[in-house]
């Protein structure tokens, strides 16, 4: 089951560049929340702050609080622990190239010392079914490399890999921007199914995509969150002039 995320006065820097300024928002559990905004507005940085990925860059810095259920992300929890509970799917599909399809899905568990073969088989199958990839790959799970799949399949493989460690939150950083329309719609269908079990935060450049998959939408601009509301409200009757300008394509 997913958990809600409470973000309070979150600030982030890359070197001297203040990329996120005083972000406050509550992301509801078991829903999909979309983050939109022009390139460089800080939406990717924001999701990377939610699983402490931002700080893997040596010049990056974060202040503020993020709570995820009982977990204080910037408290005493270890990043490794947090990332097991917060799955992440990246913009470009990034399966481990030297691993089979099976090993890609099992990687998170295996690399953390999980050795029960039988349970692993079940988890791999369940994760691949949940990511709607099972039927396409079930015959060459251990024969084919993850890198031999098509781009859309690779991205669903990456989703399966994230689901296998049983996270509560799934962060998706433009998961369909490198994919063709058919693969994109498969990913969107998937988000639709998954959001009953996971809290999903999806960064997207595609406003139709946000409208299709998310209940809530946040609009970022120049490192600030301009507006956060129900998707319907954002796209039909935004309160802020800048949101309206962006939605109607006047800039960005």
């Amino acid at each position: 089951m997913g958990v809600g995320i409470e973000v309070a006065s979150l600030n982030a820097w890359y070197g001297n560049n203040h990329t996120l300024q005083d972000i406050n928002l509550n992301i509801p559990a078991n829903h999909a929340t979309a983050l939109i905004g022009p390139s460089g507005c800080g939406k990717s940085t924001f999701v990377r702050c939610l699983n402490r990925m931002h700080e893997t860059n040596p010049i990056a810095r974060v202040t503020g609080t993020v709570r995820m259920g009982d977990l204080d992300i910037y408290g005493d929890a270890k990043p490794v622990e947090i990332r097991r509970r917060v799955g992440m799917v990246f913009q470009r599909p990034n399966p481990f190239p030297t691993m089979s399809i099976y090993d890609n899905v099992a990687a998170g568990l295996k690399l953390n010392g999980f050795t029960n073969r039988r349970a692993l088989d079940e988890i791999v199958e369940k994760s691949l079914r949940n990511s709607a990839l099972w039927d396409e790959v079930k015959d060459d799970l251990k024969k084919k490399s993850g890198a031999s799949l098509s781009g859309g399949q690779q991205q669903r493989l990456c989703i399966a890999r994230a689901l296998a460690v049983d996270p509560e939150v799934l962060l998706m950083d433009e998961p369909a921007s490198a994919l063709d329309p058919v693969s994109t719609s498969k990913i969107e269908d998937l988000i639709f199914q998954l959001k009953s079990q996971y809290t999903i935060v999806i960064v997207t450049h595609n406003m139709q995509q946000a409208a299709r998959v998310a209940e809530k939408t946040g609009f970022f601009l120049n490192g600030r969150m301009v507006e956060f509301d129900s998707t319907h409200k954002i796209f039909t009757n935004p309160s802020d002039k800048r949101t309206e300008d962006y939605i109607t394509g006047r800039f960005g």
Partner: protein
Amino acid sequence: MSTAPFVLRSRLRALSDHIATGIAVLSTILVVAPLVAIFAYLLFKGASSLNLDFFIKIPKAVGEEGGGMANAIVGSAILLGLGSLIGVPVGIGGGVFLSEFGRGTKLANTIRFTADVLNGVPSIVMGIVAYSLVVVPMHHFSAFAGGVALGIMMIPTVCRTTEEMLLMVPNVIREAALGLGVPNWRAVLSITVKTASPGIITGCMLAFARVAGETAPLIFTAFGNAFWSTDLNREIAALPLQIYIYAISPYDDWHRLAWGGALVLIILIVLAVSLVRYVTSRGVLKGAN
């Protein structure tokens, strides 16, 4: 009328295309030709002195017919094994540090600079280093000292190629591993190094092949041995040393053996490199680039 300049331009383009292709082919021939020439000449000069005795007998005294290089072949194998045992782990460890843990730090920059300088140090100097580190304290020449000399020579090559290969692993692969909640050290070993492993192995093989033909660092470490010995604590024979001794001798018989030895050395290097490539490529799945 109006198509004339176009036709001319397209002819020029086709011509420059042919010229560029021609230059590329010519360069390839220039690169490959010496290699083919050396190998052909070695075959021509050395093949006749190869027989079973060459591989199973030790050298005979001057004037006696026959004899082989069994001791030098085994000696080279032992020296290279020892060298690899020292050079490969230290080199890979250093490369992993440079790329994954120390990137951008002063320490890493210093190590990289040192490795580059070490790469350019004449091999005889490496021999002197091993001499003063091992031979002097032990008071005698030994196979062990020769292995140390070759190992030290391998370190910079292995270290720098490991670093280069790791830097080629896209950052998204590292992030994918970290994003799964895998501890950093585990992600580095099981994901990043594994992804770069074909390149790292190539680097190790290059270093191996390079030191396999080294004579200078062995002169006052392994020293050479006309008799059968596999004792790490004693002087040991090595193919390059034996070739050197035979080649500068005044005897035709020994010259022939030297040619045979050189041929065997090259063939053994090719075999060793191919074997390692074959063994390590079997585990990696097809289609994974």
